[in-house]
């Protein structure tokens, strides 16, 4: 059995299947925090799970995906995959690195937001928003402007003794066809299920980064973007609305701790609502608009901290 050592969400991950989406661990012999096992194929997937295709119990998460296979995630440490005999391995990995990894993050008490993140001089910036809001596209635009990427699709936030941190993951983008065309093709890109997959290479940052702001993206028609700091109750609501697979949180042992963490994030981190026009010029302009807002919002605070 071949063993592949990866490093994502601050975890050393050993898998007996190849996952090109995950960054390699610098030390192949590091003790694993998480083990992923691909078991023998099955003839059919379970149809007795509590919520149809998934079930959450303390310490155990199960997922059954018709046409793909079934997954069992235990205590934030182990993922077992039973693929269907004729399943495509790309799809098997899609539900491993998406839904199953999301459930594992909940089990470990990490707060998974559905969005992309970049590293800036002010700290980590996360972009969230509804399906198709352009989170990956905006992150890819920042990447092209020279920023290092922390994550695409799922951003894990951890409470550490030093404060709130984002744990980087996934050394690739998943872009829809028009964004892929606009940002130009890259070496090593391939088409996977429904998105173009573009490796990040040197533009990836593997270390935890202090979390500074969360941006909630939405569309509007006006030419200039409208960027506002959220206040009050809205902050925690908008944060929870952008959890990755929120239904997987209910029933976890970590549920109460995760809700407290949501309160701390809403309290300590700046939440910005960002409405902008969805065209090429709008996206390019947004990078410089956000840079201005960040300088204005965070320059004073950073200066204060460094005294």
């Amino acid at each position, binding site marked *: 059995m071949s063993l592949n050592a990866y490093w994502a969400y601050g975890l050393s991950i050993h898998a007996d299947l190849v996952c090109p989406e995950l960054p390699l661990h610098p030390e192949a012999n590091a003790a694993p925090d998480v083990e992923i096992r691909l078991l023998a194929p099955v003839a059919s997937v379970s149809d007795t799970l509590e919520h149809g295709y998934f079930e959450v119990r303390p310490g155990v998460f199960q997922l059954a995906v018709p046409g793909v296979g079934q997954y069992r995630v235990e205590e934030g440490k182990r993922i077992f995959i039973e693929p269907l005999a004729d399943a495509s391995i790309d799809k098997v990995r899609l539900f491993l690195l998406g839904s199953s990894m999301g459930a594992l993050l909940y089990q470990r008490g990490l707060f998974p937001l559905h969005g992309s993140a970049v590293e800036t001089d002010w700290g980590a910036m996360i972009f969230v928003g509804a399906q198709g809001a352009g989170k990956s596209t905006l992150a890819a635009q920042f990447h092209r402007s020279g920023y290092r990427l922390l994550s695409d699709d799922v951003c894990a936030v951890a409470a550490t003794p030093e404060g709130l941190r984002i744990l980087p993951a996934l050394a690739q983008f998943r872009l829809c066809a028009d964004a892929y065309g606009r940002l130009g093709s890259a070496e090593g890109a391939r088409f996977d299920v429904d998105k173009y997959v573009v490796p990040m290479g040197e533009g990836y940052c593997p270390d935890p980064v202090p979390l500074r702001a969360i941006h909630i993206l939405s569309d509007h028609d006006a030419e200039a973007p409208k960027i506002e700091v959220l206040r*009050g109750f809205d902050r925690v*609501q908008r944060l929870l609305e952008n959890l990755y697979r*929120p239904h997987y949180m*209910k029933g976890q042992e970590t549920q109460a701790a995760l809700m*407290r963490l949501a309160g701390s994030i*809403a309290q300590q981190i700046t939440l910005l609502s960002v409405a902008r026009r969805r065209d090429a010029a709008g996206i390019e302009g947004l990078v410089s608009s956000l840079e201005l807002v960040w300088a204005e919002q965070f320059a004073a605070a950073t200066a204060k901290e460094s005294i």
Partner: protein
Amino acid sequence: MRHFGPEDRLTRTEDMLSTELDQETVLMSIDAGAYYGLEGVARSIWESLATPLTFAVLVDRMVREYKVAPEICSADLERFLAEMEREGLLRVE
């Protein structure tokens, strides 16, 4: 209008996840995708409901805490509890 009897037993539903933000308690129903913010008296009522209790006990507790006339307190509580019940935050037995 919904009326409550003194022996009606009030229990929080298990559907709600909650967190604290500033002076507010924020409740979330994952199943309904609904959010509620409770401040001041509403928050204190929600906290009282942490362990199930009867309507009479709750009225008594609020009367002492907020120094209001029992009839006024009782009517205000009925309005608020009925709303909580409608939104699925409260079970009445």
